């Protein structure tokens, strides 16, 4: 039987699910709910109307934290990358902040913003800001000098230079950066919701465990998080396929 290539991963997942269910049936216990129980959990969440509400709550926080980080980090990073003195001044500082996990900021976030949306958004912002800043800085530094010289040769003013050479030259790397940081944002929102709010997919997981060990709902939450993360990544990838954006990948 010949199967189209794009159905092969689907078939593989189905096989794994069947294996999972068979293993659970043969060794019933407290280790993990089976896929049928998890599917039941998702139906439960849908019936109570909280699944959609929680997804929207999580996406709302991600949108704010990620957008604020991108809006601040990209212009700042482009500027620091362009003016070498700025980079020399800020680089050590950025390198110290960058390895601090966003989770380490949780107490500070609660101290500053209290328990609520703002604290979660702040955590996502912190998680996205430094990676995006570094990517924007290196994007400018990696512009081939030939484009810069060609731009200067045609007598562009500073603002023309920014819009017609600098911006198109860094776009491919910025898109990759946005894709990476959106992934980080989605990781951080789950952690933030476990501590600082009482809605969202992260909260769902903690709440399902605390309120009576509903592990079917825990795993259901994990599955939903994974699927939405995948969809976000696919959406960012489709941006990279716009012809005038993705030139770098085809040029080299």
């Amino acid at each position, binding site marked *: 039987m010949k199967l189209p290539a794009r159905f092969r991963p689907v078939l593989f997942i189905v096989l794994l699910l069947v294996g999972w269910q068979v293993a659970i049936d043969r060794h019933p216990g407290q280790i993990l709910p089976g896929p049928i129980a998890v599917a039941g959990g998702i139906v439960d969440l849908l019936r109570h109307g909280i699944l959609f509400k929680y997804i929207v709550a999580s996406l709302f926080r991600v949108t704010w934290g990620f957008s604020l980080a991108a809006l601040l980090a990209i212009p700042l990073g482009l500027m620091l990358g362009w003016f070498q003195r700025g980079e020399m001044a800020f680089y050590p500082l950025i390198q110290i902040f960058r390895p601090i996990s966003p989770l380490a900021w949780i107490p500070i976030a609660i101290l500053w913003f209290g328990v609520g949306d703002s604290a979660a958004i702040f955590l996502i912002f912190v998680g996205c800001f430094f990676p995006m800043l570094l990517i924007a800085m290196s994007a400018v530094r990696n512009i081939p000098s030939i484009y810069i010289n*060609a731009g200067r040769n045609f007598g562009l003013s500073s603002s023309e230079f920014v819009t017609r050479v600098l911006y198109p030259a860094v776009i491919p790397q910025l898109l990759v950066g946005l894709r990476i940081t959106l992934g980080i944002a989605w990781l951080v929102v789950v952690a933030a919701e476990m501590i600082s709010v009482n809605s969202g997919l992260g909260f769902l997981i903690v709440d399902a465990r605390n309120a009576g060990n509903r592990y079917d709902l825990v795993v259901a939450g994990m599955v939903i998080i994974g699927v939405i993360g995948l969809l976000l990544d696919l959406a960012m990838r489709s941006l990279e396929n716009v012809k*005038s954006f993705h030139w770098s990948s085809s*040029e080299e």
Partner: protein
Amino acid sequence: MSLAEVITKSSGDGQKLKLEHLHMVYGQGAESVPVLEDVNLEVSDGEFVCIVGPSGCGKSTLLNVMAGFLPATGGTVTIDGEVVSGPDSRRILVFQERGVFPWLTVEGNIGFGLAKLSREERRQRIAHYVQAVRLQGFEHAYPSDLSGGMKQRLQVARALAVNPDILYLDEPFGALDFVTRVIMRGELHRIWQTERRTILFVTHDIDEAVQLADRVVVLSSRPARIQDILTIDIHHPRNISSPRYLELRDELLKQIGLAYEI
């Protein structure tokens, strides 16, 4: 002003570019490297000048100084009596490779320097130069879809479109294969004959120099001085197996220190 000065100024001797006592030193103090040493040259309007010399001698540096990308550490570059102090769209530098903007189509690249023209003028100018470099049918293609030779023709078209007085070409065909290089040579010569710009062409290819140039400037090894200037006194189209051609070619090979036989 003396009478003689009035006459030379008003009659216009056709002189375009003048290099006077040009010096270039990279770095400072004990680590400084002299690259150009007392380079003097006059190029007349519409002339095709090739610059040859051993690799690493400072040919590209000289071109970058003339185009205003690098400030000379001594001496001056004068174009039409005006001292060059920076890059300017009246003189365009064409790079060896990767000089076209990969995010713009062929049309977009040719129109890059034409933002100040009206839409209609721009359209005409682009159409003219698409034709001139024979890229018809590729107007909407991106550079990633073009061959190496087509990209270089595109770069030349983008440069010509802004109507520059001088074209500086920095080994523009150096990264191309032999056959494409020979074809491009012919194309450049054809364009030069119809458009009549002053061209300064850096190359390491002796044949390229003898086939294209009115005069060939030979630079010494670093620090570069002008070692000799050869006038190529053969009419176009040039017969590349004529005795005079071979004589000039041998002379150039001798000048850059290469023997007749391998």
